[in-house]
């Protein structure tokens, strides 16, 4: 039986691990390479690195970080942030990433998803979506809107429509990231996650809001997520990956325990 995955997300700014709340107030909180290694040894199922570096000159620092992680960590490893072209993605794959996360650039130019799926395979093309709750309207029938550029720019795109479009264009997995829940540690956006997971046939990774083991349980059962992304709750040392997995196992969720 397939296990539910626990994925740690590391936001990297200028080569350092950073964490935001509701996409603002970003702070440096450590070295991403040693954190990645620590989580890997503690039974993490998958790793996501997100480059939130503002200036494009610092992109090479990220390539170096990716290369260092790839030498030490032997679980699936995806990288995103600032991927605008197949060429950008290729550099990250060469450095050692396994999967590529596309986000803002794909909203502006949806063909990017198809281009990546064609170049690297659908299974290595992950569509990451940053989503804000809005009034249900003709423009946003699902009641959720896709926002780009690190939560700053609304694009007038309905979240559910975009998820379905992403699947159709060849994304192999979806990251559903709730801006409302990001960094609050008050729980994932369950309705949003379930709505998208039930609508698509590819795996859905829930993101944003994890603060307690109960939140993971809720999103992996009620929220129908295939994987749960964690950040603050492990970065600050409040919980360990192995502790979370043991707790989920005791509460009836199938997770990988032997590693």
């Amino acid at each position, binding site marked *: *039986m397939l296990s539910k995955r626990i994925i740690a997300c590391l936001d990297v700014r200028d080569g350092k691990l950073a964490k935001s709340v509701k996409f603002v107030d970003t702070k440096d909180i450590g070295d991403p390479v040693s954190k990645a290694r620590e989580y*890997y040894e503690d039974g993490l199922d998958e790793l996501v690195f997100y480059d939130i570096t503002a200036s494009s000159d610092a992109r090479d620092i990220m390539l170096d970080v990716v290369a260092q992680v790839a*030498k030490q960590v*032997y679980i699936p490893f995806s990288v995103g942030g600032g991927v605008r072209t197949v060429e950008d993605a290729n550099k990250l794959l060469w450095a050692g990433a396994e999967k590529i996360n596309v986000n803002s650039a794909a909203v502006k130019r949806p063909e990017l998803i198809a281009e990546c799926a064609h170049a690297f395979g*659908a299974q290595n093309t992950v569509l990451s979506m940053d989503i804000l709750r809005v009034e249900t309207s003709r423009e946003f029938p699902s009641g959720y809107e896709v926002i780009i550029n690190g939560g700053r720019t609304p694009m007038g795109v309905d979240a559910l429509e975009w998820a379905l479009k992403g699947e159709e264009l060849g994304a*192999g997995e979806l990251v559903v990231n709730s801006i409302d829940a990001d960094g609050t540690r008050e729980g994932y956006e369950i309705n949003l996650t379930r709505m998208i997971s039930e609508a698509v046939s*590819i795996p859905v990774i829930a993101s944003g809001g994890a603060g307690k083991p109960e939140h993971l349980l809720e999103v992996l059962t009620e929220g129908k997520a*295939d994987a749960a992304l964690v950040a603050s709750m492990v970065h600050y040392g409040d919980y360990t990956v192995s502790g979370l997995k043991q707790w989920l196992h005791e509460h009836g969720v199938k997770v990988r325990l032997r*590693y």
Partner: protein
Amino acid sequence: MLVIVDYDAGNVRSVQRACQHVGMDAEISADPAVVAAADKLIFPGVGSAESAVETLCDRGLDEAIKSFYATGKPLLGICLGLQIVLEHTEEGDKTCLGLVEGASERFEFSDRSLKVPHIGWNELTINRPHPMLENIQSGDEFYFVHSYFARPVNSHHMVGTTEYGDKTFCSVIARDNLFATQFHLEKSGALGLKLLSAFKHWDATC
């Protein structure tokens, strides 16, 4: 020399890095002569079997892998490398290498909560002992990413199986000097590295 077959189907560098980690230097090669003359061969692959088979044939690597297999030296297939050693794949209706009788077919589920591709960590059940699996036990989990699964004709070749939904599919094939896994042992943490380490020592005499 350990050679990793390069046919533009996935991250051969991940496999090479994992080999290095367990103390095996590996050469990545797309040259049929190098592949056929290797001491040990890894045949990896992710993505579409259709384009993978086309690229293999265009480069003459299909024949190179077949002649390598005929020498009796150790051959390790990973993911697509397990499906393509069979005779046929439903993906693009392609004829494959035919080292093992059988074919690959697509996962079909009536239950929509079962996602395809099958992505994530799942358990291996070992059907019969094999020297490559000495340090692995049934219930150990490995990382899978695939939409098609192998169906070997001869159950003796089906050394390991895995369950997804109501389906029990073949996740490890072994025949003579061939050992192949549907899962990515280069991405399966310490247990995957253990298997790769076993390949380092396996002389394929069984």
